[in-house]
C-alpha cells in the first residue's frame, strides 16, 4: 500500500473507558513528516491518543483520519494494510521474549507478507533480509546481539529491538509510547536523537509521548501538552513557557489550594 502522505487528523475525539473519559474532545493535526512530542503527567491520555492513531482504540465520538483515510470507514483488510505502514513502539515493548532479536525484528514485516512468505521468513530468511536486519540493528546500536534471545537483553537493549522492529516495517509514520521510560538519562537522549534523526532522514511522521518535558523541549520542535484527557497547549517548543509546563504537571490537590 502506498500512502499519499503520512499525516494524522483527529477531530473532536472522545475516548471513554467505562464512565472515565481518557480523552475528551481532542482535535489534533499532524502533518506528513512532522515530529511531535506529547507531554503531560501520567494518566493525561497520551497512550490513548497514540492508540487512537493506529486504530487500536476507536473513539466513541469524533473521527480519526490517517493518511487522508477515515479509520472508521476502512475495511479490515485496508486497516491492516494501513497499519503495516504505521510503526508502533509500545511502552511495554511487547516483544516475544523467547525468540531471537532477529526474529522479533523481522516480525515487523508480517503485515506486508502472506502467511507462507512469513513462515519462510522465520524458518529460512533470505540473506538480503538478514543483511537488512543487521544494518537496522547497527543503526540502533545492538548489531552484535542479533541472534541473542530477547529475554537475555537489558531493558535498554530490548527498547532498541522494539524500535528496530517498528522501523523494519518501512513505515510512513512512527508512534512511540514513552520510548525512554526505562532508560537512564544519557541513553535516553541518545535514543531520542536516534528516533528523530531516522525520521528526519526518511521523512517519517513521528509522534512520541514523553513524561519528561525537558527532553521533549530539547528534541522536538512541536509540543502537545495533555492534561486530564484534554489538550492544554499545542505550540512550537520554543514558545512553551515554563509556567505552562508547571501548570501541566501540577497536582490536582495543589491547584485547589
Amino acid at each position, binding site marked *: 500500500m502506498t500512502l499519499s502522505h503520512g499525516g494524522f487528523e483527529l477531530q473532536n475525539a472522545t475516548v471513554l473507558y467505562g464512565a472515565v473519559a481518557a480523552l475528551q474532545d481532542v482535535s489534533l493535526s499532524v502533518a506528513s513528516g512532522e515530529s511531535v512530542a506529547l507531554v503531560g503527567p501520567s494518566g493525561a491520555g497520551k497512550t490513548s491518543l497514540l492508540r487512537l492513531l493506529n486504530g487500536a482504540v476507536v473513539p466513541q465520538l469524533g473521527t480519526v483520519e490517517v493518511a487522508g483515510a477515515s479509520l472508521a470507514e476502512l475495511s479490515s483488510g485496508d486497516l491492516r494494510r494501513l497499519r503495516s505502514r504505521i510503526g508502533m513502539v509500545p511502552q511495554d515493548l511487547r516483544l*516475544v521474549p523467547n525468540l531471537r532479536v532477529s526474529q522479533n525484528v523481522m516480525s515487523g514485516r*508480517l503485515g506486508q507478507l502472506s502467511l507462507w512468505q512469513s*513462515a519462510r521468513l522465520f524458518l529460512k530468511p533470505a540473506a538480503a533480509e538478514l543483511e537488512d536486519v543487521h544494518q537496522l540493528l547497527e543503526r540502533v546500536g545492538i548489531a552484535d546481539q542479533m541472534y541473542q534471545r530477547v529475554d537475555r537483553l537489558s531493558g535498554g537493549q530490548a527498547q532498541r529491538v522494539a524500535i528496530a522492529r517498528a522501523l523494519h516495517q518501512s513505515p510512513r509514520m512512527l508512534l512511540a509510547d514513552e520510548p525512554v521510560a526505562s532508560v537512564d538519562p544519557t541513553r535516553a537522549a541518545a535514543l531520542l536523537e536516534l528516533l528523530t534523526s531516522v525520521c528526519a532522514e526518511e521523512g517519517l511522521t513521528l509522534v512520541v509521548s514523553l513524561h519528561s518535558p525537558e527532553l521533549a523541549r530539547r528534541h522536538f520542535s512541536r509540543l502537545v501538552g495533555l492534561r486530564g484527557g484534554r489538550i492544554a497547549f499545542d505550540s512550537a517548543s520554543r514558545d512553551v513557557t515554563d509556567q505552562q509546563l508547571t501548570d501541566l504537571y501540577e497536582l490536582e490537590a495543589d491547584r485547589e489550594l
Partner: protein
Amino acid sequence: MSFERRPGPGAGSASGLKPGSRLGSLGTAGVVLGALLLAGIWAAWHLRLEPGQLLPGRGGWQLAADFFGSALRPAWQFEGSFQGSGSSSLPAQALRAAGTTVIFAATSLSLALIGGLLLGFLSSFSLMRGRFLRLVVAPARLLANLLRSVHELIWAVLLLAAFGLGHLVAVIAIALPYAGTLAKIFADMMDEAPDDAADALEMAGASPVQRFVFGILPRALPDMTAYTFYRFECALRSSAVLGFFGFPTLGYYIAASFENLYYGEVWTYLYVLLALILAVDWWSGRLRQELVS
C-alpha cells in the same frame, strides 16, 4: 518441576496461584477438608472396607515372601519352558519387549500429537477469533473431552472387539485419549500464553493467523514441548499395560511369567520397565528444566 501435576501452562504460574497465596481464611480449606472427610467416610461405608482384608491369607503370605524374595534375584534365564515369542534368552526377550513397548508408545504419541495439535488449535480461543470461528471452540473442546474421558484400556477393549488383535489397535487405543488430553492442555497453554506481543504484531498489520503463529505459538511452544515429552513417559506406561490385553509389550510378559509363578522373570521384566521409565523421566525432567528456565 515436572508434569505429573497436569500443569496449567507457564510452569510456576501453572496453577494460577499467586506465589505467596494462602487460603484467605482457613475457612475454605476447612470446608474442603471437611467435605473430603465426609466423602471418604461415605466411600469406606459404601465399599464396606475392613482393614482386616488387608492382611493376606496364609497363601498370600507365602506368595508375598516368594515374590519379594525374588526381587534381589531377577532371572537371567527362562525359568520354565515358556519361551514367549521365541527369543533365545531372557535378557534378549526382555529387551525385545521393551523395544515393542517403546514402539507402541512412540507411534501412538506421534498420532496423538498430530490429532492433539489440530484439535488444540480448534479449541484455542487465541486462534479461533472472530464471531464465527469462536463457535468452533465449544464443539472442539467437547470432542477433546469425550476422547479423553474414555481410558486407553477401554478404547483397547472397544477396538479389539471391533477389529481384532492387530498392533495398530493398541496404537490407536493410546492415541485417541492422548490426542484429547494433548488438545486440552495445548489449548490451555496457548490461551494462557501472554498475548501482548501478538497484539503488537496485529497493530503492525499482521493477519489473525500470523498474529497467532508468530506472537502466541512461540511463547507456548516450550511448555508444549515439555508436556509432549512428559506424555511420552505416560505413553510408555500405557503401552506396557496394554500387554495385559495380549499385545507383546512388557505387561504381557509380566502377566505371563507371574501366572506361571516365575517370579525371577517377573522381576527382570519389572526392572527393565522401571529402567525405561526412569530414563525417560530423567530425560523429560532435564528437558523441562532447560526449556522453562
